[in-house]
């Protein structure tokens, strides 16, 4: 019976370009991201390549990650330059990410925005938050590595979609924690766009690990340190949380 189950599992993931082991790992990562509602508040501090420090800012991320639809809403908390600024985005089954930005006032204008753009002049990018590469068909295991002394499996994700701002992603996944300890994103010319590294983790109520501190290093050596200081794994998404996104269709 167990052999049959294993065979079925192998058949399930025997897609072109998707090794069985890679398939299992990618599926695990996709499952680990699923959430009916979560909220995280974080502080981000960016240091430019020339050493100039930008004023740190706080933002809140509310999300719903389902198999069919994924939605995120980012709200600037402080200081004034980000306060009341919203960015919302959704990723549909076709993989397309649509994003908008708007202000606090309900009557304020809603504008289309680029999901691949830097958020609030930091290394944070909305596109990265969706982890879109886990849904790409081409996934392969490239061996193993260590990040800050922790063993991880290298997974290469690749897409031929010309519209995608990122063509290849190399993730180093801690299989037990179901967490990518280091994620390197490359463009179509295989130039490194940015590296996202987990610096500190926190155990969630479910027992799984989540990133508490992250560093995002961009191609020009601009570095953004992100620290999640509050979170809610069972966030109740209100009807109006994504109202702007829904009404802008």
């Amino acid at each position, binding site marked *: 019976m167990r052999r049959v189950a294993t065979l079925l599992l192998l058949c399930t993931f025997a897609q072109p370009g998707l090794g069985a082991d890679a398939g299992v790992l990618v599926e695990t990562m996709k499952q680990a991201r699923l959430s009916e509602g979560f909220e995280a*508040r974080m502080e981000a501090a960016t240091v430019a390549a020339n050493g100039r420090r930008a004023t740190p800012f*706080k933002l809140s991320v*509310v999300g719903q990650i389902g198999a069919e639809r994924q939605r995120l809403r980012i709200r600037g908390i*402080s200081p004034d330059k980000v306060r009341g600024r919203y960015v919302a985005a959704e990723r549909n089954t076709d993989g397309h990410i649509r994003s908008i930005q708007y202000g606090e006032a309900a009557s304020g204008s809603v504008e289309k925005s680029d999901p691949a753009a830097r958020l609030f002049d930091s290394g944070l990018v909305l596109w990265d938050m969706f982890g879109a590469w886990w849904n790409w068909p081409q996934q392969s295991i490239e061996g193993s590595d260590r990040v800050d002394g922790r063993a991880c499996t290298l997974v290469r994700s690749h897409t031929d979609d010309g519209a995608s701002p990122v063509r290849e992603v190399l993730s180093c996944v801690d299989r037990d924690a179901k967490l990518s300890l280091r994620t390197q994103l490359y463009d179509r010319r295989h130039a490194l766009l940015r590296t996202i590294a987990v610096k500190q983790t926190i155990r969630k109520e479910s*027992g799984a690990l989540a990133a508490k501190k992250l560093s995002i290093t961009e191609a020009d050596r601009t570095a953004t340190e992100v620290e999640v*200081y509050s979170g*809610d794994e069972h*966030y*109740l998404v209100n009807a109006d949380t994504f109202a702007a996104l829904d009404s802008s269709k």
Partner: protein
Amino acid sequence: MNLFRFALDNLYRRPARTALTVSAISLGIAAVVALTSIAWGFEASWQKANDARGTDLIVTRIASENTMPSPFVAEQVRPALSALPHVQQVVGLLSEMLTVSEDAPPVFVFGWAHGSYLWEHLKLKDGRWPADDGETVLAIGSLAAEMLHKQVGDDIEIEGRVFKVAGIFESSALVENGALIMTLTQMQQITDKPGKVNILNIKLDNQATDADIDAIKAQVRQTLPGFIAITSGELVQKNAVVRISKAMSNATILIAGLVGALVVFNTMLMSINERTREIGILLALGWQRRTVIKLIVGESVILTLAGGAIGILLGIAIASGLGHLELMRGKIDAVFSLPFLFAVLGLSVFLGICGGLYPAIKAARLQPSQALRQE
């Protein structure tokens, strides 16, 4: 000359080595005293905060082990809890540790249900309490006011929203003195957790007995899956930070004990080797082997006793000093219990006996004829 004086003179004869050994032991003991008192203080402070509020039972999520348990929707469980026998009040509490000033470390911000019994134990020093749920004001602890340089009427920005300081209060618990308190509704709004609380505080009537408390605990376990009713002491015991700090202090006791014993062992062994001829003379003069053992063990006990006493004073100074550091203010409230300090002194003596016993036996076994031949 009595044996004690003799042992003391032997230690005086090698002042550098004696001082180094005493220093090593005192540092180890100081680490034990400082870490343990901080760990106990942390636990006591949380316990004191919960006890001072007059809470009899706390209802929280089973998996909650963080400083503040994970938030949950209060109305999921409040009606069932209110219906339990002897339950007078069920009051929600939401808390987070937040940065409210660039110049000060993060502070605890509490959201308490307006008009609930939770506010009653606080002593208002200046100003007033929030008038209602909708008022965007807060009350700050006296220590927080000092740390944040705030007084009544000043503004404090929390999570992008500006609150006016309505009052400054004093609490018997350090954790509350260093905190900011607003109404639960305001806290839920700024943290984007509408309707959620970290814990539900239950106040029982005066007729409730220990058996009633146990019955309520059992009923919560049976009827509210995923939730647990515990006393404030039990909640503090579950706290991950308390557990980690206790584990750290236990590890320090073990390491310091081991290192201390080895230091004494080494010192006494070297001393015996250097004094072989002297011990031979003592034995030749008619000293009993038992007396030689007493002398050597006595010397090592004097060393560890001195190290222990200095270490205790040093540990108290370190723990008290840390509490005055800007980064630690309002977070450390070291507790020094006299029985513990005597136990540490006892540990020092035990280390002296352990570390000195083998060298003492070795010295006592010397043959006077052989010992006197040694240069």
